[in-house]
Each structure stands twice: as C-alpha cells, then as structure tokens.
C-alpha cells in the first residue's frame, strides 16, 4: 500500500531534479557562449574542436548550404548553370544520390550556357540510356559556342575522360582521332596548353591513317607552343577587370 505513493513521489522528485539540471545547464551554457565573440573565432577553429565524424558532417552541411545559397543568389543563366553544376558534382562526390535532378535541370534549361560544360563532360561517353542524351556530336556542336577559356577546359576534360576510358597501352586510335577531329576547326587556338592536345590528335590521326588531319594538327601544335598560357590569360583578364573598375571609379569620383 505504501510502496506506490513512495514510488510516485520518487518519480516526481526525479522529474523535478531533471528539470533543475536542464535549466541550470542551459543557463550555464548560455553564459559560456556569451563570452565568445563569434567574429573573433574562425569557423575552422570551431570545427577543429569537434570530433572527426561530427566535423565531417558539419563541414558537409556548411558546403551544401554555401552551394545552395550561391544557387539562390545566382542571377544570370550562366551563374545558375555554374551553381547547379557545382551542387550536382558535390552531391555526386558525397554519394548522396541527389545529383541527377541538378544535372537534368542544367541540360533542360541551361544547356547552351558556357558554364554548363561540366554536365556534358559528366555524361559524355556514357552508354546509351545513361548519357541523358549527351552524345559526342552534341558535344562537338556545343563546343563551337564556347568562349576561349571554357572551350579549352571542355576539350581537356573531355579528352582526359576519354583517355581514362581507353586502354592505357592500346587505345582505340580511330575513336580518339574522330573525337578530337573538330579541334582542327578551331581558328588560331589561343593557349600554349593546346599544344599537347593537338600533338595527341596528330599522333592518333597518324595511327588511324588520317595523314592530312595529323599534319594539320601537328602544325597547330607547333604554333600553340608560342602562345601564352591559360594562367597568363587569366591574370591578364584580372588586370583588365581591375583597370576597368578603377576607370569606372574615377569617372564616378569614388
């Protein structure tokens, strides 16, 4: 008879003590956090204090939120395509299984944008049914519309992917030559780094019995050896941008 009320009282006491514990802990935690000026402590330092599994999950979340925020803030179709590509490749690298909708959105809405080239590279050379309709012919058409920098990146990425798929010692020379053939149509390739790409085209064209194509490619490879590098081009672009900004500021009197 007396055990039940005692048990009830004990449970009530336990609940009251738990409540006191949570209240005092929350107060002390707030008092502790209030001491820290978050601006004075870098995010890296905060994360460094956490155990590995938690740090990785929080880092994942931070990157995801940053990518989602850049997609949200993207104004032009080009920046939207770039943000979608970044988000898709992040999801794919983290194996979340959520990458396809982003890739598909790029192909559906922004497939002509220069920033969309990573999507072409992603699906290029994939078997029918898994390539989302991206074919070599489609890539050849797309690359014609690209500006110098993106065109170079698209070609090198595509070539690297193709070489990765082919056997290292006995690659399919005909297939590689056919794929690289449109390189010869680029009028005056602007970068030094095109030189090895044209040299490769020349080699595989010769191996596959396309003498004329090989000769033209070799000639362009030699010409490219005297061009500036992509890094120099980017530095020049940055300097031009700064110069334009300064001129603009002078005009507006800032």
């Amino acid at each position, binding site marked *: 008879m007396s055990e039940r009320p005692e048990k009830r009282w*004990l449970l009530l*006491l*336990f609940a009251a*003590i*738990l409540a*006191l*514990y*949570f*209240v*005092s*802990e929350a*107060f*002390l*935690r707030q*008092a*502790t*956090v209030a*001491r*820290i*000026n*978050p601006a*004075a*402590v*870098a*995010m890296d*330092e*905060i*994360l460094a*204090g*956490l*155990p590995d599994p*938690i740090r990785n*999950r*929080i880092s994942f*979340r*931070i990157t995801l*939120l940053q990518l989602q925020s850049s997609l949200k803030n993207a104004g032009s179709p080009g920046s939207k395509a770039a943000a979608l590509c970044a988000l898709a490749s992040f999801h794919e690298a983290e194996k979340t299984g959520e990458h396809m909708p982003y890739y598909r959105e790029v192909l559906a809405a922004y497939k002509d944008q220069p920033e969309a080239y990573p999507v072409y590279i992603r699906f290029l050379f994939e078997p029918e049914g898994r390539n989302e309709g991206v074919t070599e012919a489609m890539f050849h058409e797309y690359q014609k519309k690209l500006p110098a920098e993106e065109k170079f990146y698209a070609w090198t990425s595509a070539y690297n992917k193709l070489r990765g798929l082919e056997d290292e010692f006995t690659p399919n020379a005909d297939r590689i030559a056919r794929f690289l053939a449109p390189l010869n149509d680029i009028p005056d390739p602007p970068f030094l780094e095109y030189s090895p790409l044209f040299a490769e085209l020349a080699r595989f064209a010769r191996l596959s019995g396309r003498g004329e194509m090989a000769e033209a490619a070799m000639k362009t490879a030699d010409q490219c050896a005297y061009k500036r590098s992509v890094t120099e081009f980017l530095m020049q672009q940055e300097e031009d941008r700064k110069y334009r900004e300064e001129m603009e500021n002078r005009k507006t009197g800032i």
Partner: protein
Amino acid sequence: MWTVTQLTFRKLKEPAFFLMLAFALMAGYAVSEMDPVSDQVAGNAILSHLLGRQPGSEPVLTSTFAALLISMLLACFTGAVEIPREISGGQIQHWLSKPISRSSYLLGKYFGILLICAAFFCATELSVILCHYARTGAFFSAKLIARQFLMMSMFVPYTAVILMFSCCAGDIAAIIFTLLYLLFSLLFNLIPILIAMLPEGFAGEVEESIFVLYYLFPNNLYFLLDFPLFGIVSGMLLLYSVSIAAIFLLIADYQFRHMDLSKRG
C-alpha cells in the same frame, strides 16, 4: 547516517591516506606558483575565449586544478571500493542490522567520501597558500582563495557518480568505469558550446543526437569559468552540481535498494 559518514571519514587515519596526503602537500608546494588556468590555455583560440579573465572575477589557479585532480583520483579509488568491499566483507550486514535504511547508509557513504575529498583538497590548497606566502611574503586575496574553494563544488557530482558505479559493479570495475566516464565527460565538454557558436541550422540533425549524448555527462568546463563569486552564475553552478549529484544518487539508491547483498557477500 552521520555515523556512517563519520566512520567513512575516519579512514583518513589509515597509513595509505597519510602517504597520499603527504603526496598532495608536496604537489601543492610544486605547483603553488603556476599561472592561472586562463593563462595556461592562452594559445588555444576557443579555450582562451571561454576561460579568459573576466572583469570583477577571480581566476582558477593551476594549483587548484592540480589539487582537484589529486582529490578526484583519490575519491575514485576510495569511493569506488568502499561499498563493494563492505558487501564482500560482510560489514554491510552489520550496518543494516541497525535502525538505518539503505538510503541513509548510501547518503552516509556519499558524505563521508565527499568529506575525504574536501579534506585532501583543503590540505593541498593550504599547502599552496602557505608556500605562496613563504615565497612571496604575501597571502592571496580572500576573494581569490574563496574562488579556489568554490571548485570543491565539482566533488558534489563526481562523488555521486563514483557511488553509482560502485553500486552497479565490483570494486575494480567501478574504478575503471568511473575513470572511463570521467574521460568521456572531458570529450563532450566543448561540443555543445562549439555547436552553439555555429550559425543556426549548420549542425542540423547532428545537434539533437549529440545533445542526447552530452546530457549524459557533467560539463567540467563550467567549473573552470571565471565569474563573479556571488552572482547568478555561481548560484546556477551550485544548482547544476547538486542536481547532477541528486540524479546519480537516486539511480544509486534505486540500484542499492534492489541489490541482493547476501549473494554478493
């Protein structure tokens, strides 16, 4: 209950305790002139913010930290074996044949071990204060000394933790579990503070699971903060210590009341 406390405390007369006391006094002498804990962690970006000196507050001295560690280790070795040995030695039957309930016996043991810890801590602290006087010719300020003695509030939850483990396991197992528990509690100390500093929503679902784990351990960091001696924070700290101790004592009491003492004997 007080008789149990008194008899537990009297164990200080044993030679092993005298040896430990001598060690504690020597340690007090060795660390008496060390900088406050806040200066020791100046190199750590987050800890220096957390434990940094606050205006109007007194710092925790490194010597106090050392005294705490020594006293807690002693509490662990004494407290964890106290009840299991009395069960296996049969003394528990003697106690419970008197008009004393199991809960009173447990509380008596709790206060006894708490007093042993306090005695060791006070001895080490006195050694630190006297050594400081001998070396510099000046005493620490009364406020600073009071702040050091407030650190004894840390014994309130830990003694309860030790007793809880000693009611659930044998003597050696209780020592191991207590030490492991203390180590794990150190691991979890910074986590909620770091998560609170992250922008809202960044920790996501991790936050909930980590807080569930966090609430299972006392946060030692709160005891080391610099705060005004008589203020709401110190009041909350005492409430925090007492509430944790009460939770663990209730669990220990439940376990002890349902224990078959004759079997273990």
